[in-house]
């Protein structure tokens, strides 16, 4: 089954962007930009400022991908699912939260930070912001290719569980104290996948699954999400 790739969004050390926005996409090691609400949402947004950095980059890249696909605005909730691969999840938020527990012996743990100590919470923020009612989950896999989340999203569409899915990766830089233990490249990338392609927007081509489970982009094997995005965007 061919699935249309209809939107791309990202937050990487090189900057923010979406497929049709004209920004350059690159995912190389470095520091992520500090996102402001105005860079992500043109209108005031009470929730954005209090989110963890991990949640902000995940939510922002989903917002950009939906904008690119023409799906940012909505009036009724939609059964769109989200699957993201992550190596470290919300480890940075976990450390920030636990530091509110330690110094005071547990007397001042931050309930707001605790709410963001689940790796899937940014998906809940995206669900609220964009009215998305599909299945949402974070996947940990070997390596940082994001192939598992992309494959699972494609399967979910092929098996009739969802018509539209967001698939991507989301990671912050490894915390300084663990920098030698992990080699994660920070960034969040999401793509919008649809089983029913739009005839009004050009999109980026078609994804499908080979019989052995490998991911095909316009009929050719794609290694992972980052390589796929480079290929998609180089053709523009």
């Amino acid at each position, binding site marked *: 089954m061919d699935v249309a790739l209809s939107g791309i969004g990202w937050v990487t050390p090189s900057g923010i962007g979406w497929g049709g926005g004209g920004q350059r996409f690159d995912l190389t090691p470095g520091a992520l930009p500090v996102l402001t609400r105005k860079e992500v949402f043109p209108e005031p947004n009470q929730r954005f400022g209090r989110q963890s950095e991990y949640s902000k980059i995940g939510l922002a890249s989903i917002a950009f991908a939906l904008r690119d696909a023409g799906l940012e605005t909505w009036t009724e909730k939609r059964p769109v699912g989200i699957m993201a691969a992550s190596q470290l999840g919300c480890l940075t938020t976990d450390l920030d939260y636990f530091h509110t527990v330690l110094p005071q012996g*547990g007397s001042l743990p931050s309930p707001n930070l605790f709410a963001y100590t689940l790796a899937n919470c940014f998906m809940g923020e995206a669900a609220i912001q964009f009215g998305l009612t599909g299945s949402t989950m974070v*996947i940990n896999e070997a390596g940082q290719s994001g192939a598992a989340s992309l494959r699972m999203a494609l399967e979910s569409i092929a098996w009739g569980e969802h018509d539209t899915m967001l698939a991507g990766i989301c990671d912050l830089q490894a915390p300084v104290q663990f920098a030698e233990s992990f080699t994660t490249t920070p960034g969040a990338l999401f793509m919008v996948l649809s089983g029913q392609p739009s005839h009004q927007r050009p999109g980026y081509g078609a994804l499908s699954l080979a019989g052995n489970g490998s991911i095909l982009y316009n009929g050719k094997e794609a290694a992972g999400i980052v390589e796929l995005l480079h290929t998609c965007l180089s053709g523009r």
Partner: protein
Amino acid sequence: MNRVYVTAAAALSGLGPDLETLWQRLLAGESAVRPIERFATDRYITNNASWIAGLEPESGRSRIYPLLELLLDGFPPVPAGTVLITATTKGCIDSMEQLQKGLAGDPHDLQVEHLLQWLGRKYPVSSAININAACASSTIAVARAAALIANGRCESVLVLCMDLLSEFVFSGFSALQGLAINTCRPFDLNRNGLSLGEGGGALLMMSGALARREKRPLLGVIAGWGAANDATHITAPARDGCGLVQAVTQALKKAGIGPDDIGAVSAHGTGTVYNDQMELTAFKALFGDRQLPMHSVKGAIGHTLGAAGGIEVAVGLRSLQSGVLPPTVGLTDPAPGAEGLFSNREQQLTGDCLLTTNSGFGGVNAALILQRGEL
């Protein structure tokens, strides 16, 4: 679509080291919720949780490893090429605590991939992923496993679900004022919060063809599954239960059955005011005024977070086998809408299908339909 069979099930909880012990103690109405001895609790709103005695690791090692070793002790062999799906929300969170306190710990434990690699050395799996979807993690892991087998992507999946009792999570729920002072009281008029727990569940799922070739016992069928986000709030459920209704509706459709075919419900039933009310609202929308037997295990073993759904599947299959639904421990005075559904005594289960549901932070809801099954 291939039928999906559960051929082996194991559960480890505060009530004991195996599923049979858990089952007998659930029927006896016992609770493992008791004062915590693992960390100081004097600054938190309670000192009670369900925890596994003797879960003491070697220095610098996470408790998740002895938990898994205990869980998998005596578990049947896993066929070569099996897909591994784990489900955990916080994995080796105790290693993070140790490291932040300046004690010995392995930083690699902070990445779930490390745990997957450790499991990959124990079992001949073809691939491995972990699913994190808050307190519905293992429910969604079972759903994913069922979808893989049903659609012919593989013939065998091992689902391992686990989470620890940690000061990290305990302090957070305490800060949210979400913990019951004593044992939680699911669906009770005077419920006032959840009791945390820890545990693990293991489910070996197979296609009928493989189960037959391997001469495996058939504990039951995963007949339907569904998951949905209620898109309402990060830490609170939608009051109208829309996400849970959507997830259950998907599961019924997948199973090819209607609400009247459900013989019993294993509810998430955390004992918080809002979760339980949301579930009652959703069940009313789905089942109307039917006096359908329902229960929650959270008063007995606490809320085991990412392990909850897997343990509840193991218990649900046991319920289908025996025709009995265990008591809801902690319930004394049913909340409006829970009368006639939940009981602190065991209830008889009629029919061949049991619905089990879980919900969690981030708006997640998931549902599974378990069925008696033969090849």
